[in-house]
């Protein structure tokens, strides 16, 4: 891909987010140009971008609910236009909460259809941070279907990560439509079977959900924290842990792609395809 044809990514910096720079780095490593844009920039600037990332953090201090205040910002009108145009949008952690609060995900009837609620954990309360495995859904309409059913380890770090809804049957409906893009699973990809493999009590072990068209993905774990092999804990179970151990002693190998890289590559590829079509 020549430099000229690189898709341009906008990483939106709401007051209080804190993962904007590493998210931009991960997008660059996947072949995009990436800029960090403050929430109050002239929103017409956004029309020049091909893909959008809402990073993790604590936008507006999680006032009211996580993501609720940022979801009312004017800049999201510009994001809504981009979504209409089919441009890829990824919300990670707090960014996922913003996408849900803004009604972009799951985007069935519009408005707030589900919640990302405080974790439910048997022996602890509040914030919880560790690594888990995600089983991706190859049948989903999301660009993340390019992960092709693979199992990837990712770190998560949140106090409110439990996908839930009052609408009965909503998750079954989302499941049928392929909108459940990723689920917490065991290292071999088999079902989580509840706590602690499912770290927050999320309904149906959901870790990431897309909109109906598939261009918007809201996920709680942090792929930007595992975009390089060197970010993977060396004693992690499974294939990626073994790769990390085998890379010991080689800085070049540690600079190679980690499990999260494929997600960003899939997103940037989707933006390129759209741009060229």
């Amino acid at each position, binding site marked *: 891909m020549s430099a000229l044809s690189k898709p341009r990514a906008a990483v939106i910096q709401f007051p209080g987010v804190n993962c904007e720079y590493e998210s931009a*780095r991960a997008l660059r490593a996947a072949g995009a140009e990436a800029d960090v844009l403050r929430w109050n920039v002239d929103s017409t600037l956004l029309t020049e971008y091909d893909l959008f990332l809402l990073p993790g*953090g604590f936008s507006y*201090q999680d006032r009211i609910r996580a993501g609720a205040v940022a979801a009312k910002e004017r800049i999201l009108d510009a994001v809504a236009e981009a979504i209409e145009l089919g441009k890829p949008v990824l919300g990670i952690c707090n960014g996922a909460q913003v996408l849900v609060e803004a009604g972009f995900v799951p985007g069935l009837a519009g408005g707030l259809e589900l919640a990302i609620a405080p974790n439910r954990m048997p022996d602890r309360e509040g914030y*919880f*941070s560790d690594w888990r495995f995600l089983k991706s859904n190859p049948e989903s309409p999301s660009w993340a279907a390019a992960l092709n059913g693979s199992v990837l380890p990712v770190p998560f770090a949140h106090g409110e990560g439990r996908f839930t809804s009052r609408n009965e049957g909503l998750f079954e409906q989302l499941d049928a439509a392929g909108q459940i893009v990723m689920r917490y699973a065991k290292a071999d990809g088999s079902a989580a079977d509840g706590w602690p493999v499912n770290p927050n009590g999320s309904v149906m072990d959901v870790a990431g959900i897309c909109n109906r068209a598939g261009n918007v993905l809201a996920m709680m774990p942090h792929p930007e*924290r595992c975009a390089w092999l*060197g970010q993977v804990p*060396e004693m992690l*179970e499974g294939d990626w842990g073994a790769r990390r151990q085998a890379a010991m002693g*080689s800085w070049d190998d540690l600079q190679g792609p980690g499990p999260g890289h494929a997600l960003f590559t899939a997103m940037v590829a989707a933006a390129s395809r759209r741009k060229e079509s």
Partner: protein
Amino acid sequence: MEAVIEVSRLTEAELAEVLSKYSLTLKLDEARKVEELLGRAPTLTELTLFDTMWSEHCSYKSSRRFLGENLPTDGPDVILGPVEDAGIVRLGTADGRSWGLVLSHESHNHPSQVLPFEGAATGIGGIVRDVYCMGAEVVGVLDPLRFGDPNGAAARRSREIMAGVVDGIWHYGNALGVPNLGGDLVFHPGYDDNCLVNVVALGLVPEDEIVRSRVPKEAADEQYDFILIGKPTDESGFGGAAFASIILDDEEENRGAVQVPDPFLKRVLSQANKAVLDLARVEGVPIGFKDLGAGGIACVSSELAEAGGFGMKVDLARVSVSSDELASRVIACSETQERYGLAVPRRFSERVLRIYNEEFDLPHVYPGACARVVGEVTNDRRYVLTRGDEVLSDSDIEVVTSGIRYDRESAPEVMELPAPVRESNRDLGRDLLMLLADPNICDRSYLYQHYDSEVQGHTCLRPGEGDAGVLSPFMDNPLGLAITCDGNPWYGERDPWRGAALAVCESVRNLACQGGWPLALTDCLNYGNPEKAGPFGAFVEGVRAIGAACRGIGRMTEEETGAEPNDPIPVISGNVSFYNESSRGAAIPPSPIVALAGRVADISRVPGQQFKGAGNPVFMIGERLDEMGGGVYNRLVYASKGGKLPEPDFGKVRAEALVMIQAVQAGMVKAAHDIAEGGLAVCVTEMILGRRPESGRGLKLELPASNLALDIQLFTETGGFVTEIATDRVDDFKALCARHDVEPYRLGEVTEERSLAIAAAGAAVLNLAGDELERAWRRTLPDLFPAGEGGTS
């Protein structure tokens, strides 16, 4: 109208009453000295200002002399020693520039005892500001924590304080976007009435972009403004420094002196600061920058000016306040969080204000937050504080910043305690399981899972994965940095000198396990009341020991690997926290806590702590000696702190650390862990279970020949290392050991099966399955947290 206190006209009783009425902690003779220095009666605002500036917390009035005499603060890598809020040492060259590593260490002990959540949170807030204001990016924090006995007389309160402190740390630290790289957690009944919450922050700054906390010399040639940035000033934290410098006798009464944290605003401010510092750098505009801490506006403005050799005029009427009702002395001295002071040329002020107030929109992001010009730099070396037309203070600036000194009486106490009478034929497997379940030994994962250790994306060794946290902060260079902290109160209470010396020794070993060359040390010296000869003597011994250890172990680098050091390990920043005792007068155990930062030449060689490859040989460095004193085995098995303490042998520590660092950097090491609390048996168990017990390997161990009893061989706390070596590098490792005159003891080999088998002279000593070890080790800590009271985000 501002009150004037006619100190010299008041009798002792009257003066005492006035001081008490305004909650001032100045001693009577100190108040009289204020009047003498000023040459006139002080205003109430001035008395309040001196109350803060002359507190132990700010003035180091008892400690400064000993710090200066004993601690080495200079060295070939030191860029900035302990003169400002944080020290800076040269890390190395990466991405085409020379990088400074910024290190700062603080305590927030009293606030955390009174209001655990807010106290711990504001502790982080203060320390990261110290690093930000050097122009650095904050890349990590560590939390050394000391709580009362969770099963003792104050069990309930100790557990509540721990849960509150941990909540405060995660609420604040996680929101800030700075990874938590560890710290440690120790329980001791001596902290029942006075917990310790220390915080270490580290930052990175290109050497040519360091910002100093002083008005630049260019202010002699053009007019400089003083800009106050951040949260509106309120009464929170008023009297905080003085509060840190008295004995806690009524936790309820002192709650107002604890500041209110706001990590959200801090994060936005740090982004806006970055934009301002970038602009100043690009345009070549010299500035001075300092965070507001103890003593608030009055302290920051006077110190910024005085450090540059200037004077300052500040008008409190221009300060953004939470309420117009605030008294002048409160506006001048309150410790409201999330504020910075900036000295910039007047021609630049407008653009600075625009970045804060418009681009980052502070007034809308947080009610009342803003940047405002509230004063100006003057050339007359006077400090003038007004509120509109009213003059609150007008004096030579040195009078305000000069400080005060005390000579205290010192009589350190050493506890000589005999070793307990040992039983023979104990079941050492059961003893090991008992140790693993002890609150001071058990798995810390439950704690670490509260912290965000991976934000910023540079973490390569997380808390619990090794004895040090390791970061890989550069994109095209394997240069990394390692950080660890140490301090064992069970040694300190027996012998304050040895306790401090052993803390430095262990910190060096911790870095060495991960191949870290020790670069610079920072200390937080937590002791009791300095007005008493015992606690003050313990402090003096602690400072002497840290100095001796830093000189004795010495600087080590690729070029400097000789048996005798050329230079000491420099102490580049630190903090003294006195008055840590209960209202009943019991001082905490002498608790010097040190943090050591180091340079890792190639982070791809960092081995971590867990055993990796079945069949790999495992070696021990450091002969086992009968040094069970103060150790966890004697405490649990014999309810005794007696016996001989480990002997800090600096030459040996140096030689052994050199072996480990070089072995790691040469790629020989697959896993490494230092031998400390609980001795060899606990060390190897931790290498089996580690942070990822599900991937654990096992160990088949044959104890080296020894005259010591088996329990002593297994549990003595003589320092040392256990390390897994790549099979094909054993000869290299032995040659390296020989070069440094260090004896490697072969212990056995890593097994595929997750279990621990220990034998001596061919006979089994203990055999434990991985599941048994894990069960004993993992459950204790979660059960100490009152689940359900942990708060939510």
